[in-house]
């Protein structure tokens, strides 16, 4: 059964540097890293010491407050280094990889015919619990909860986002098995959002409630789809999983191995070889891109929500994309004059960029202004297709007014849903950060 979701408000940015639809096997990188900060609010506790040998699927660390939640090695090799930051916070767990992976064997299992508790245990022991995210709060899901429903969005609307249909086309069996497993975790439905115009094979997946999604970004954000399908109320828990991770979960059941395949699209105007690379989770970014200097920003993820990384660092856990764009550390004379510098996109009409709807823009990281007080109204609503008052919610988060945040719908949002709001904001406020801090406050005060 399929239902239609039509999003009207939003903004699809057309940028230079889309990845060619060609899947290439990436050279094996020397080291792979799992970065605990990729999982917001997680406090990791190490299981292994530096120098220990690991198989792909061996536990590296677990969550201090939820010890069922395990994080396992994406490759086999030697635990080379536990990188710590301030207050000895674990920043990176680096594994020096063997030339070929040897896998820990969890044993095959047919998810559909197995007991729900056994399925859950298998997901947790293989480290696949890390793939399951919880809304509200946008944090790793607590295995002790029972979610109202599980949402998967296979719609890519973010700028230069990888095409899920292309990534999944040869892994449908694993994807289907992953869905079968996830179905055991919830008494509710598993919702799958697909692009209304995408290939049929994703629409043939069984056991899900299919939603044909149409519209500009952020229509592809799972949060927007949840808001349309079954909005989160106070006290609700829903889980979200990214499409490629569903197939990794499926593979655990089909093969008994934790095969941490990660397809990474290299995109952006500064990338030399723009293709889809197949690699493992946590690979070195240098294995995929050409050597770049400081004039280029390497983003693990997309331009709106990604993380800035250096050339010698590793790709983030959830990133299916690496974007390279020029740094914008240059002055522009009289940049404030309306209708000048029309090569920079603007959602407002003070730039003539809107006269060229088919033009692909080549954005830099320049802030295009300075931070100011919130003055302009109405611009945020244009790119947030939810029944939420963005400016009022942001102000409530800044003020830390819990009751107001609750009333205005803090449970329904994640920072990524406000990425476009942050993009268009005239006052250049770090809005995703404001929402994140608001959510963190809710975690500590309400839980």
């Amino acid at each position, binding site marked *: 059964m399929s239902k239609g979701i039509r999003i009207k408000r939003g903004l699809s940015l057309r940028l230079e540097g889309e990845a060619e639809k060609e899947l290439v096997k990436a050279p094996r990188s020397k080291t792979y890293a799992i970065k605990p900060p990729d999982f917001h609010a997680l406090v990791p506790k190490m299981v292994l010491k530096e120098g220990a040998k690991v198989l792909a699927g061996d536990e590296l660390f677990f969550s201090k407050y939820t010890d069922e939640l395990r994080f396992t090695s994406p490759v086999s090799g030697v635990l080379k280094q536990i990188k710590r930051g301030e207050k000895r916070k674990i920043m990176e767990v680096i594994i020096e990889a063997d030339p070929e992976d040897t896998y820990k064997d969890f044993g095959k299992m047919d998810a559909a015919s197995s007991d729900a508790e056994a399925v859950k245990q298998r997901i947790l022991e293989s480290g696949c619990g890390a793939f399951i995210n919880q809304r509200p709060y946008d944090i790793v899901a607590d295995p002790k909860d029972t979610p109202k429903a599980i949402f998967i969005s296979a719609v890519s609307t973010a700028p230069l986002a990888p095409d899920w249909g292309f990534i999944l086309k040869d892994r449908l069996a694993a994807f289907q098995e992953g869905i079968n497993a996830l179905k055991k975790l919830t008494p509710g439905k598993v919702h799958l959002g697909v692009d209304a115009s995408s290939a049929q094979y994703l629409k043939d997946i069984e056991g899900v409630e299919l939603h044909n999604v149409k519209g500009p970004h952020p229509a592809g954000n799972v949060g927007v789809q949840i808001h349309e399908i079954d909005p989160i109320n106070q006290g609700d828990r829903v889980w979200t999983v990214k499409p490629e991770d569903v197939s990794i979960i499926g593979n655990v059941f089909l093969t008994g191995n934790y095969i941490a395949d990660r397809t990474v699209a290299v995109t952006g105007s500064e990338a030399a070889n723009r293709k889809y690379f197949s690699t493992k989770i946590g690979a070195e970014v240098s294995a995929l891109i050409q050597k770049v200097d400081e004039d280029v920003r390497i983003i693990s993820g997309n331009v709106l929500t990604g993380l800035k990384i250096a050339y010698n660092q590793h790709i983030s856990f959830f990133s299916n994309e690496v974007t390279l764009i020029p740094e914008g550390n240059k002055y522009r004379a009289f940049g404030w004059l309306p209708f000048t510098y029309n090569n920079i996109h603007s959602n407002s009409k003070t730039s003539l960029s809107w006269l060229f709807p088919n033009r692909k823009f080549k954005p830099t990281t320049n802030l295009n202004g300075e931070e*100011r*007080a919130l003055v302009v109204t109405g611009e945020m609503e244009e790119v947030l297709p939810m*029944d939420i008052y963005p400016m009022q919610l942001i102000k409530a988060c800044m003020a830390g007014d819990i009751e107001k945040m609750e009333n205005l719908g803090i449970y329904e949002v994640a920072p990524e849903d406000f990425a476009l709001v942050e993009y268009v904001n005239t006052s250049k406020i770090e809005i995703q950060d404001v929402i994140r801090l608001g959510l963190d406050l809710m975690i500590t005060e309400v839980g």
Partner: protein
Amino acid sequence: MEWIRQKLDKIKEPFAPGKKYEKYAPAVNAIDTFLFTPNHTTQKGAHIRDAVDLKRTMITVVLALIPALIFGMWNAGHQHFTQLGGDFTFWDAFAHGALKIVPMIVVSYAVGLGIEFAFAIFRGHEVNEGYLVTGLLIPMIMPVDFPLWMLALSVVFAVLVGKEAFGGTGMNILNPALTARAFAFFAYPTYMSGNQVWVSEASTVDAISGETILGSLAAGENASYSMMDMFYGFIPGSVAETSTLFILLGALLLILTKVGSWRIILSAFIGAAVMGLIFNALPSMGVAGNELTNFPWYGHLIIGGLAFGIVFMATDPVSAAQTMKGKWIYGFLIGFLSVMIRVFNPAYPEGVMLGILLMNVFAPTIDHYVIQSNIKRRKKRIESAKTQVKTAV
């Protein structure tokens, strides 16, 4: 440009963090960022950002004001010389107006920006651009002969009490420009009202009458100007509010650039028209009415400061309603109340200033109720979800 950039970097050296004049950095930065959009890059969140910033937004409003301002300068001279009689050229009229109005603008910017800079240094934040618009609006809504020292005092009051007392740009409840005008109006009524002030030098030259159309209507006399004169703006009044045509030109720019809310502008004109129509309908209901109530409704839209107030001051995003629905209500009531005050308040023939200030005060209340309906919807959803669970059990 490169040469200027290097010079600027050199000048800024002693203002860098940790250096001697660190405290005064906002002042230098304000000048620097006026010349160059800074080289700041995104650090957190979205890596790319929209081309628009507050400077650009505010400059767009200033651009939208220019047609009305230039017309206002010419009209000041035009009114003066027409009433005196005799020949005069376009440039005579323009020069006459410009000589009076340019000093007003200079005083307004000097005093207002001075205070803004001082507060920015005192509070340690960058100078906000809001005053670029306010500083130009204030002289544009004053009578042309308004003494400069009174103008300076009004500016001081508006910026200190109207804005900074509430926490600065983005926090004020009242529109600062209208606060300045209201201050001047109540502090110096003889310079701000009556039939002596609305044409240049009317108070000193006997041959000139300084009466506005609204003034004569309120006094029970017929207006001696044609509707087209009123629309084009060849009428007495405050500096730049007379020409509906040039104001609409500015409105067009504001609406096309999405800087001004078309919802507020449209609904305010509708509100004014509705109130005008109600008054026009009085004779048919057996009430005689007076010159003001019988003045055609469309006339109300083009005389006085209504158009100027609606387009440039009701749309001030900080003091207006912030929600979509709220903007419709807010705009409508401004138009509605402005015409009502015009008709019912004989002491003060123009109501748009008070209409907007009143609605500025009520804008948060309107928003509150609009947002409450959103909150109620959310609570209702929780209720229905709970009952569903109960029936399922």
